[in-house]
């Protein structure tokens, strides 16, 4: 099952695990932006070294990262091929119909490959070392300034935590529904549009009904425990900014500066 958020977290006690989720989230963001600025071998190499250090510090086996990339291999190859075949400029090395390969497009294709890898790596580090709930908490902290313009940050964060909490539950329920329908002889894998529609409806109706039931039960339970609004809630886990966050930010900012210096 291709899953980009769930079941990927690996418990641990490394440097990266100990960093606060809000700074990990912002660092990943910042890193993706810096990747945009890299445009030659030296700047990409600087970023690659940085990500290698981050992976080492996360204490997670490199195998997990390779496993994470595997479902994306074809997509990466396809995009790189598109880039190589469809970009213009440079000396033409090979031409066939609308396709052409130039020396520039080959270089760009290589860079896009590295870019892909770097972005997937940083996001994999984030999801391997941070639980979904911690990420929701990080989002709340990052969005806090929006409170000034009356944006309901806390409500949004609570909604996100509830949603993340119920994704596995709904997934289990869906599995049950799927098996129930399969045991009645429904074939989900093939057929015409009409057939697919007939298969989808008995799958979606119980899923939605179940979700609405959860919402109602949860509302009752929350109100019975005195939930009134999401603005004045206390927290079980509090993530504080630490020395590790400051050091990581300094290193990342330094590398960011280096990339700006190295780029053409």
């Amino acid at each position, binding site marked *: 099952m*291709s899953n980009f958020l769930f079941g990927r977290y690996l418990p641990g006690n490394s440097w990266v695990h100990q960093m606060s989720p809000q700074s990990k989230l912002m660092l990943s963001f910042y890193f993706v932006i810096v990747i945009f600025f890299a445009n030659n071998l030296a700047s990409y190499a600087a970023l690659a070294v940085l990500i290698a250090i981050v992976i080492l510090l996360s204490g997670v086996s490199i195998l997990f990262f390779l496993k994470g990339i595997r479902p994306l291999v074809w997509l990466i190859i396809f995009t790189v091929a598109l880039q190589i075949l*469809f970009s213009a400029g440079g000396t033409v090395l090979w031409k066939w119909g609308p396709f052409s390969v130039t020396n520039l497009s080959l270089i760009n294709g290589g860079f*896009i490959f590295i870019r892909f890898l770097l972005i997937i790596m940083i996001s994999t580090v984030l999801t391997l070392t941070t639980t979904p709930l911690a990420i929701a908490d990080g989002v709340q902290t990052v969005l806090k300034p929006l409170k000034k313009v009356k944006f309901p940050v806390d409500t949004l964060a609570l909604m996100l935590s*509830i949603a993340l909490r119920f994704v596995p539950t709904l997934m289990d329920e869906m599995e049950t529904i799927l098996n129930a329908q399969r045991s009645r002889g429904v074939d989900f894998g093939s057929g015409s549009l009409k057939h*697919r529609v007939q298969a989808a*409806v008995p799958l979606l109706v119980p899923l939605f009904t179940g*979700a*609405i039931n959860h919402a*109602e039960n949860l509302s009752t339970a929350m109100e019975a425990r005195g939930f009134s609004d999401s603005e004045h809630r206390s927290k079980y886990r509090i993530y504080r900014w630490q020395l590790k966050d400051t050091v990581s930010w300094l290193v990342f900012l330094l590398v960011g500066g280096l990339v700006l210096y190295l780029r053409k």
Partner: protein
Amino acid sequence: MPKTKNTLRLNLLAMFIAIIILQTSIPLIGYIPIGPLSITIIPTTVVIATILLGTTDGAIIGGVWGLITFVRAYIWPTSPLATIVFVNPIVSVFPRIMIGLVAGWAYTALRKRFKNQSLSVSIAAILGSITNTVLVLGLIYVFYKAKAPQLYQINMEKLLPYLIGVVGTNGVPEAIFSGIVTPLIAVPLSRAIKRRQ
């Protein structure tokens, strides 16, 4: 009690977000592959949310779907198309918010005219689905014209016909699917909710 309603609304929105997250990560209930095409049934979910919870909440659910698409285009792209098109937040988020708004407006307007709820839901769903396709296509075109900076510098001039072909051919079965399935799900659900209140 208005407060009770707020808690319920919060939880319903959370559940719909959970369903959207589920649909974007599990192929079977989010996307239906038919031959070479892969039509998405998430607009159906957005329209169902719009009809059950109202226009604003439908737009919120649509926006959440857009945000997920936007983030995933970078870190975990679902298709080669996503890496080219959805890395732009205006292309990925704005059309999805509009699904909720258009379907909501159409539904409230149609309900005043027609007695038949299924028919109104069906038309609203088709309009919502078409909104998504037209806006995504339109915005791809606009941004191509404006020569916006892209993550992957691909020669768009040659690629554009293919891009429009892919999105366009997906759009038609998507609208048909939406039009048929949405009333089949939304009408019994809205009855079930009414019965409990």
